[in-house]
């Protein structure tokens, strides 16, 4: 633990060359961010058994800054909003700048291609999934390349955080959510979550229950981790690839209906230090999936109907400066294409009405190592704000 903490400091960053341990897992290199969704981890990402003694600090050499940082910060916004990577370019990190510009171009291509496909096919029932995914992923790439440039330009290399090297076997939380939805009476919720991990497997039940209405949402999630940090496998990178199946029962008792959903998702996180060492401290995560829902109406005829749901969640997160063996502090901003749940989809007044999902932000901190807290907020058809208290059991 002490060694990792020390290595977050400047004297260590950039000076310690990565060394592969005998038990490390070498993973393929990729330069294209779009590969992230399909397990892109670089050779800098190493995994080792958590009980091993050859812990690697994972530090990556970086190129010294040659430009003015204040100028670069301004440049990351203007013209950076249009030319992503401008901030890094002004810092003299041309290769990073080119990568961000390529990511932006790929994002614009995804958006234009997706929208063009939707327009040309009239959002055909047979082709809407790939075109919608391309559009959403394109927006995500565009957003990532902009935010990552600003983030990596504003912070010095020494100020950038690191991902946890292990995940906690057990995490539980209790919390409160306030939900303002003009269409429903409920406002106040208690929520309880838990995650139990053993090896590559994780099980996560979750309950949100209204205290001022008859409404609850109960879900259970089973996930398998193909690569990435686990309770028993240490990784110098926060990158991971999971597959998950989730079942959810959302009962609107006082409104006379209930929605049961089963969904399958992939969760692919790319620690940006695996993409480019100068972007370390951040990550992007892409969670595509599909869901099937059964809606049961409380009517004399007991009506039920089936529907499906396109899932895509894109997250840009920032690791904060407290690297520990288990999940550390982080802040994330995300777009979630879901139209169910409490936040549901954004309300717009024009042509895009009904299509977009919701935006959210989440921040979690562990001031006492085993005990932490999180703040969450979502904006969709409703405003959701919450606070949770966390406990985690760390591997001894």
């Amino acid at each position, binding site marked *: 633990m002490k060694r990792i903490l020390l290595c977050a400091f400047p004297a260590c960053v950039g000076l310690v060359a990565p060394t592969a341990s005998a038990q490390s897992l070498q993973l393929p290199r990729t330069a294209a961010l779009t590969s992230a969704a399909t397990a892109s981890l670089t050779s800098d990402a190493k995994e080792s058994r958590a009980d091993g003694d050859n812990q690697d600090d994972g530090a990556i050499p970086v190129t010294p800054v040659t430009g003015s940082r204040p100028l670069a910060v301004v440049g990351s916004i203007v013209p950076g909003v249009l030319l992503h990577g401008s901030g890094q370019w002004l810092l003299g990190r041309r290769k990073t700048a080119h990568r961000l510009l390529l990511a932006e171009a790929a994002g614009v291509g995804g958006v234009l291609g997706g929208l063009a496909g939707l327009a040309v096919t009239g959002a055909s029932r047979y082709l809407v999934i790939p075109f919608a995914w391309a559009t959403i992923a394109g927006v995500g790439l565009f957003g990532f390349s902009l935010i990552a440039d600003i983030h990596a330009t504003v912070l010095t290399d020494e100020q950038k955080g690191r991902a946890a090297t292990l995940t906690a076997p057990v995490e539980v939380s209790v919390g409160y959510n306030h939900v*303002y939805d003009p*269409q429903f009476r409920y406002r106040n919720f208690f929520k309880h979550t838990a995650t139990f991990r053993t090896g590559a497997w994780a099980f996560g039940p979750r309950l949100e229950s209204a205290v001022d209405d008859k409404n609850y949402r109960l879900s259970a999630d089973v996930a398998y981790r193909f690569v990435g940090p686990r309770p028993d496998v240490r990784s110098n990178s926060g990158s991971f690839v999971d597959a998950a199946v989730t079942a959810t029962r959302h009962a*609107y008792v006082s*409104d*006379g209906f209930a929605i049961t959903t089963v969904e399958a998702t992939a969760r692919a996180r790319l620690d940006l230090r695996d993409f480019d060492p100068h972007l370390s401290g951040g990550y992007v995560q892409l969670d595509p999936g599909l869901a099937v829902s059964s809606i049961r109406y409380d009517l004399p005829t007991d009506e039920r109907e089936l529907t499906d749901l396109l899932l895509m969640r894109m997250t840009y997160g920032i690791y904060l400066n407290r690297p520990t063996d288990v999940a550390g502090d982080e*802040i994330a901003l995300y777009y979630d294409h879901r139209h169910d749940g409490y936040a549901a989809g954004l309300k717009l007044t024009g042509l895009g009405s009904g299509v977009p999902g919701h935006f959210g932000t989440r921040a979690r901190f562990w001031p006492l190592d085993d005990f932490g807290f999180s703040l969450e907020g979502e904006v969709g058809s409703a*405003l959701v704000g919450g606070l949770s208290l966390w406990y985690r059991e760390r591997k001894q």
Partner: protein
Amino acid sequence: MMRTRTLKPLVGALIVGSFAASCLDVGEDRARADLEVGRGAAGDVKVRVVDGLATIRSASDSELRLWNSAPTVAIELTGETSRTLELTLDNAMPAGQLSGEPASAVTVTALAAERPTQKRYSVELTGAGPATLRFATVSALDRTAFRFAVLSDVQEAIDDVRDIYTKVNDEGVEFLLGAGDLTQQGTVEQLERYQAELRSLNVPYYTTLGNHELGQNPTLWHDYFGRGNFSFEYHAVRFTMLDSASATIDPMVYGWLEGWLESSQDGTHVVAMHIPPTDPIGVRNGSFGSRAEAAKLLRRLAAGGVDLTLYGHIHSYYEFDNGGVPAYISGGGGAIPERFDGVGRHFLTVDVHPDNGVSSVRLVAVDD
């Protein structure tokens, strides 16, 4: 440093949240504008169209011009001086007649009009008190079967819309029901063009608005076509039009809907709106932004005994059930079509009876 970095995103989230809070009631302005439809003055004569079922297109000391949103329209006129108004009703039932009461306060004389859906009258107000004008067909209250048509999503295909009207004129329908997206962006020019094209239609067109009508000024629609949320009866069949142009129904409108549902609990009730609560192709989500709100609305419609739901927005044809209520999506007005569906420009005809419900829904292809 840690503290600063923690606060920045939270402050940002608060700003975004404040902005978003103002965006949750996206249909509120339009619902409030509904309440003002049909209210105005012709000189010193106060005008109020009951239930807002006609919008005032123009008014002066000597002239009053209305655009009807329903087969039966009641107009209350209040003035203390005698006056003669030339009243023009556009989008009117061809067989409709205007009557006025009390006789001591108003006299109505029919004038020549330009087309079947236009009615012109000379209305003499004596100043002896408030007068009520009632426009209706003689048979409007009869419990007999009739046919109406459904058309939506014309948008950029306005140049060819007369092809559709020609076919509608041949179908023996009492009126055409619209589920929105008449225009591409809802501009003044486009709304006027649409009303101009309606001159070739021999029956009135009662319609709500779609998301394409929200392009510039969301309440401009009300000046041309009237309310987005309204309900009327014809031959004892209730028709309710809802404004779902923002992929939601305004909370205020749910209150109005309760009353409309109660009034037709045991009769036949047809509900139409632009964006459907649910898309039969769920992954596309050409539907409400919130699945929960969609289910809430559909449960209310089903519990309220609604017999048929009609939607636009998706440029194809779908027949399905929502909440156990038969549903049809018909976006066949000519806007960019959904490909590979085998459906071209089309409209629907619906045969309905006040006691026996809906007996048939038929797709009429325009381009054979």
